[in-house]
């Protein structure tokens, strides 16, 4: 089975890209493809706790991130270098991702059959 890697690299809600990338991710999971999800650069803001996008009339997709493991997506990584750059700590994020180095991110991208960002 072909493997697929998703790159979230933009903050949430300023556009629909996070939501639309997540939809591809869920669909690929339904097809039982081996999936890696990477949060990198400004994409680390996607994982912040206590998001309340209802105040700007947008649907919260945090709950869907939290449900990824129910869909069989277990390889969820956040790049340590990006956290440092944006002054964020793992405790501030949804407890679903593992912090890894840029080298690990590089390796995951290199070893996947498809890589998709939006």
């Amino acid at each position, binding site marked *: 089975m072909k493997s697929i890697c998703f790159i979230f690299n933009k903050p949430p809600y300023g556009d629909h890209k996070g939501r639309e990338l997540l939809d591809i991710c869920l669909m690929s999971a339904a097809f039982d493809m081996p999936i890696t999800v990477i949060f990198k650069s400004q994409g680390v803001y996607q994982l*912040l706790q206590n998001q309340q*996008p209802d105040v700007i009339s947008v649907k919260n997709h945090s709950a869907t991130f939290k449900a990824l493991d129910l869909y069989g997506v277990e390889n969820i990584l956040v790049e340590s270098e990006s956290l440092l750059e944006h*002054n964020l700590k793992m405790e501030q994020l949804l407890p679903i991702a593992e912090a890894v180095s840029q080298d690990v991110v590089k390796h995951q991208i290199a070893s996947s059959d498809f890589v998709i960002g939006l």
Partner: protein
Amino acid sequence: MSTLFILNQPELLDDCITVMQPDDALLLIENAVVIATKSSTTQYKMFVLKDDLIARGLFESIHDQSTAIDFSKFVELTLAYDKSVSWL
């Protein structure tokens, strides 16, 4: 004349700052609110749209150099400054 610069893309901050004068202010909205969590070395007055912070779970993380404002204050700022420039 004083100017209110409105920024909605964090990556354009450096470019925007090159055109600002001492009396100008910066208003961060939409995705650009992520900037407000970092300490900065800019000497400009910095406002941040509160609902955009809350939406992204950043309201508690705002740095004390920035002031969170609501839409009412947003309208007042556009009146208080001679003009508003959206830096796109």
